[in-house]
């Protein structure tokens, strides 16, 4: 049995909050670089160049890439042979509190959805915990901005809608979102499961690096087809028009009921952030 202290978990979460908000993952940087090279429309290319300048400036000046430093979505894969010494959830919240405070990140969380008083420290974190075999604890912080989150959609399709129905739903989501989610976007797509599970699949899909296709060739080719259809919409960077509407997308699936075909699209932006560490 391996023991990890709550203090170590807090420290890791705090560091990851700051790292994720100031440095984009390499796969997202590469996708943006590829898009700049392949974008044929002049205004779109200029816009992508400015987004690139922003990344460099954020790095130089130690500023968050985007002012919406997000809701702190924290994914923990906890080995069954690990014992956390102390209060697990409170340790994660404290990490968010410290990271957002010491990192000069924005506090964007309200304690109650209708009464809307700001908690002042960006807590609570949105924690997703999964038990896995082994003695490792893997922590990923994926801060999520709500300009794009608000454009996400969930549909309970009919089995008869099939692959075409799913494609139509995803492309329609991007078309309806238009300029709102700060395109070029990144999409996490969940298919199957139940009403709640499909949304969790879509959120989790945003963690997969953009240069890694789905391991199943059937879904890998569906990802490719969807990307091509979306980038034929013409929305373009910031919605000003152009080829680059979506930088990449990932599908996650789960077994579902004979009567259902749930699909969820979690929309993210060109500042799709995630940082991971192992304890």
């Amino acid at each position, binding site marked *: 049995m391996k023991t990890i202290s709550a203090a170590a978990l807090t420290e890791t979460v705090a560091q990851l909050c700051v790292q994720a908000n100031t440095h984009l993952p390499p796969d997202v940087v590469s996708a943006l670089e590829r898009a700049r090279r392949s974008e044929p*429309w002049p*205004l*779109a290319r200029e*816009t992508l160049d*400015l*987004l690139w*300048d*922003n*990344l460099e*400036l*954020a790095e130089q*000046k*130690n*500023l*968050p*890439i*985007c*002012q*919406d*430093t997000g809701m702190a979505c924290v994914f923990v894969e906890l080995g069954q042979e690990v014992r956390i010494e102390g209060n697990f959830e409170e340790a994660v919240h404290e990490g968010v509190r410290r990271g957002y405070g010491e990192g*000069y*990140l*924005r*506090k*964007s969380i309200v304690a109650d959805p209708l009464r*809307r008083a*700001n908690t*002042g420290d960006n807590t609570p974190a949105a924690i997703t915990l999964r038990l896995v075999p082994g003695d490792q604890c893997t922590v990923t912080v994926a801060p999520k*901005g709500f*300009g794009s989150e*608000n454009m996400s959609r969930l549909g309970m399709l009919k089995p008869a809608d099939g692959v075409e129905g799913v494609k139509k739903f995803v492309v329609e989501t991007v078309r309806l979102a*238009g*300029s*709102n989610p*700060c395109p070029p976007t990144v999409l996490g797509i969940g298919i199957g499961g139940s009403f709640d599970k499909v949304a969790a699949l879509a959120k989790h899909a945003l963690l997969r690096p953009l240069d890694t296709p789905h391991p199943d060739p059937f879904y890998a080719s569906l990802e490719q087809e969807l990307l091509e259809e979306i980038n*034929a*919409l*013409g*929305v*373009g960077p*910031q*919605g*000003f*028009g*152009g*080829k680059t509407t979506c930088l990449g997308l990932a599908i996650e699936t789960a077994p579902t009921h004979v009567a259902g075909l749930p699909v969820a699209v979690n929309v993210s*932006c*060109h*500042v799709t952030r995630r940082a991971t560490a192992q304890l």
Partner: protein
Amino acid sequence: MQYRLTTPVTREDLASLRAGDTVLLSGTVYTARDAAHQRMMDLLDRGEPLPFPADGAAVYYVGPTPERPGEVIGSAGPTTSGRMDAYSPRLLDLGLKIMIGKGKRSQAVKDAVVRNGAVYLAALGGAGALMASSVKSLEMICWEDLGCEAVRRLEVEDFPLTVILDAHGGDLYESGPAAYLETVQKASAPLR
């Protein structure tokens, strides 16, 4: 076309702007987003004055990150403007001339833009570090309890913006993608 403008502006200053033009804006810009707009409406309902003079003013929908010691402002890109659609026509009718944000606006806002000879300009969404570099000073003017949503007076220099809605009914979110798709279709049309 690129224009240089300094706030406050008049209807005449904005008349030549067209959707797709770029603007380098200097002068005073006030920040306000969801909660501040709600409070401004409450003030107007009670017959009290707004926290800043609306006439010819520019408002920026932004909630910046906290500034580090010695810095003017943190990261400061735009938030989604559509959430302010319910409030904007009333402010435009009071003389507000420039709205800065990102994303689609309602038909009621488009109509109010045309009616008042105003404009809606886009800042670069997700480019908070870049937008912050044009901000020269920041002063909190009210509702500090709102945190990132408090109203601040910014002095900006050559703030880089793109015209989305112009005073003549133009909308770049419609014309931009349409123009791109037209060239793609022409390029793929079979040669006679």
